[in-house]
């Protein structure tokens, strides 16, 4: 049982940006990310009116790698990607706060019923 754990150490995480000469179009390659964040980020970017194209792919399931392609109407692609991550953070943060309150509420309600 001494095999190297798959969830690799933090320092091997890498990000590469393939953008060519035009900053409004870029492919971001993220390691150790998958559909968990990929699809959510894709969805948030797709709703941004400044984004003309967005897609993500996980090229091979046994390779811990994810590509996100973003093309915008002019603003740098990295800006909209960062915006989308801020939005997703806010969503998760809000759910976090709401969840604790919802569990407490349910517990109070069910203890009153008994």
């Amino acid at each position, binding site marked *: 049982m001494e095999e190297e*754990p798959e*969830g690799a150490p933090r320092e091997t995480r890498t990000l590469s940006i393939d953008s060519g000469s*035009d900053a409004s179009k870029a492919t971001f390659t993220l390691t150790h990310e998958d*559909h968990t*964040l990929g699809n959510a980020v894709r969805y948030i970017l797709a709703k941004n009116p400044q984004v003309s194209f967005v897609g993500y792919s996980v090229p091979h399931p046994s390779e811990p790698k994810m590509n996100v392609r973003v093309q915008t109407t002019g603003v740098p692609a990295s800006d909209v990607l960062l915006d989308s*991550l801020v939005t997703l953070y806010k969503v998760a943060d809000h759910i976090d706060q*709401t969840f604790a309150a919802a569990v407490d509420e349910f517990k109070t309600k069910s203890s009153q019923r008994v």
Partner: protein
Amino acid sequence: MERGKDERLGGEPGVEVLHLTEDRITFMLNNVDISVANSLRRVMLAEVPTMAIDLVEVKENTSVLHDEFIAHRLGLIPLRSEMAAQFNYARDCTCDDSCPRCSVKFTLDVKCEEAHRRNITSKDLVSEHPDVVPIDADGLGDDLGGIVIVKMGRGQELRIEAIARKGIGKEHAKFNPVGTVAMCADGAIDLNHDALSTLPLDKIYEFVNTPTDDPPGNCPAKVLLYNDISKAIQVNEQAVDEEKARDINFFDKMAYFAEWWNDFNQLKDKTAPELIRIRDRPDRFIYSVESTGVMPPALIAKVAIDVLREKVNQLQREVAKGVEDAMDGHGYAMAM
């Protein structure tokens, strides 16, 4: 964007707990897209940290199972993991090999002195940490309680030292804190009152009642009511809420029921209207999370939300840094 509000769905994400027991939580997540809802499901399955035995040193094994077999079985024993957040991952820990900050030592030292056989269970495992212990499996399977590791004959002996570490389900399934995480879109029941009023009374009773045996035309639960005075069929919303909290497949079953009755109504006349329609509510998701016993189910969901948030946070910092580096290196910003 205010407080994680999703403009298209027009509202802040909300959570409502429908049901909570010792080993299961059912809750509804409102006003999120399916992609975000699925992220949460995936994190609960594969990225909530728990403790499990990860390193086994066999000092003496005269049982019928070979060392690797026993090591594997030890790894799969669920350990209470409420304290997992306070441990380091062994790979990130400052120690060389293992220390109390990243691991918990277990010992198993048993010899069968009984005349016939003895079950060696998770109860024979001795933990160094008072809170990281095998789950209480009383009442599960064997009447001795505990999870059977090996059965021993007279004179057989097992001496083992094992180390439990923190990990996530992505790394090895033994770290998975849940039995199942089911997620489905909430539903709604629409009745076509005009079409239903044309049914003969005996058919209306058949439609509404739930006989004990189970042909496809039976309503899966008592959620439809016939009002004798107003001569109308109603949906009992409270019963629907109770049913969907109890059974995550409730709307699926309702859809089968609806299909049967709509087919029945269209037997003679293909253009006849639908009697009942089950509609998806794709902005509301019901989760049913069953814990393996390593953590209370509400804690699993809570930790999963935290993990999801921190994953995004980390990625955000990495992307920001990556963009900065790219700008320094290749005049990336000038290309604008």
